[in-house]
């Protein structure tokens, strides 16, 4: 899967979980840029992403992301090459 496809699908998950259709994600987006993206919703987002892409993150990976770009890199690294 292409990186921008992953970003689009992740954005859709964010919109659904945070119940906000105006969310636009890019590589530099952080929790501070998105209203309601806090520690509690973060876990819900992670669970939804894992379910959607059928992948599993480690605890260290989840806590090491500094922005959406790093999250997308993690997802991409776990998906089979096209």
């Amino acid at each position, binding site marked *: 899967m292409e990186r921008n496809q992953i970003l689009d699908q992740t954005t859709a998950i964010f919109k659904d979980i945070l119940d906000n259709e105006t969310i636009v994600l890019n590589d530099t987006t952080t929790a501070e840029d998105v209203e*309601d993206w*806090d*520690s*509690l*919703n*973060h*876990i819900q987002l*992670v*669970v939804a992403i894992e379910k959607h892409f059928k992948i599993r993150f480690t*605890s260290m990976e*989840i*806590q*090491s992301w*500094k922005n959406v770009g790093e999250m997308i890199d993690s997802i991409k690294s776990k998906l089979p090459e096209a």
Partner: protein
Amino acid sequence: MIFNSFEFVCFFSIFFILYWFVVNRNLKLQNLVLLVACYIFYAWVDWRFLAYLIGSSLLNYYLGIYIEKSTKPGVRKVLVYIGLIQGVGGLAYFKYFNFFISSFNDAFNFLGSGLNLQTLHIIIPLGISFFTFKTLSYILDLDKGKMKATHDWVVFFAYVAFFPTIVAGPIDRAKGFIPQLEKKRVFDNEDATHGLRQILWGLFKKIVIADNCASFVNQCFNNYHSLPASTLLLGAFFYTIELYADFSGYSDMAIGIARLIGFHVTKNFNFPFFSQNIAEYWRKWHMSLTSWLTDYVFTPLSIAFRDYGKLGLALAIIINFTICGIWHGANWTYVLFGFMHGCYFIPLIIAGTMNKKKKAAANKTVPSLKEALNMLGTFILVMLTLVVFRADTIKQAFQFYHDLVSPSLFSVPVLSIFDTHKSKVLAILAFIFMMFIIEWFQREKDYGLQIDFLKSRFLRWSIYYAAIIAIMLFISKQETFIYAKF
């Protein structure tokens, strides 16, 4: 040396002149003067633990540098563990050792074994819970690559020992605070005005409200068995207000003092009693501690338990709040206090409303009936747990609850108990009402007295003088800050 004391005013005046007018051109010297002031402030209260504070700073300073340098994950892990063991171990020894020993003795005696391990005569270093959480977050953030280690020992030592916040917080994270120490600070009139106003508001809450509530609360909790339930309820109400006014008042003063010397300290309270539910309350009460626990306790736990859905979330929250409770001190009352708050989240988790953030009466002057009832309900839930928090033992707390549930709950409360007179109690109630009215209208601001929007200079100064006069008129027996003992 507490903030509302003559000796602190002398200490701060000398420091202020040196800091802004003598060494202000040289950042390194300015930081060194700040560090020396921090250690004088700390030693003034109790010099015996200065060595522990310095030792802890030294160890974590070098650990930080070596964690950043280490390329081998194994070595890095060992260094992080050394930092964690020093921090948690120090807390365990100074704060909880005797608690563990006496709990072991009690447990074995209950099982019929006559175990009698000796407790030790341990004095708790001032502010240990606060500065230890600073060093722990520094090490953990470095390990996760969230920040860079500082290579300036004066900066790091001043971060750990920063005198406005060392006694009772707010707990500033290194990531936000160290950069402030590393850049040149310029005296800013507007910032200083904000600082002074916030100090005044903190003093008002501490001296006029908290200290005056304290005498009624102390009498009430010391003699609860001989008082009618309605008076006990009033005592529990006053304690809730006392704790808020004392701790938020302290935080306002700490933040204001820091602003006077050019620092922006993290916010600790955001008008918690206007919360619609307990989750919102904890987002607004002792925010620097709750955000610390969220990052380093709740988040790892909720990630680990994420496969168990709402059950996993409830478990993570209950563990998180039990730790929050025991952070306050070595007593089963604090454990129960935290556990109760954790359990309060269960209905919200089940309903899926824990994270719904709705501002009460947004853009309105008066809350709706539903919002007002939600606020009242949240206040009552908190007040009930603070009976446990205030009690010396769990048994005493339950006796207080037992005495609270009686027909005398519907009687007129006795206002003149022992040396507290009815007129004083009524005056305190009037001030509490006034505080809440001010805070309600100022709830979008950082603190109650942030009245820079008032154009009339005369009106602003009238309000300042009214606060000062109230402080001078209602100054009572000086009480230490409640959170200073944690």
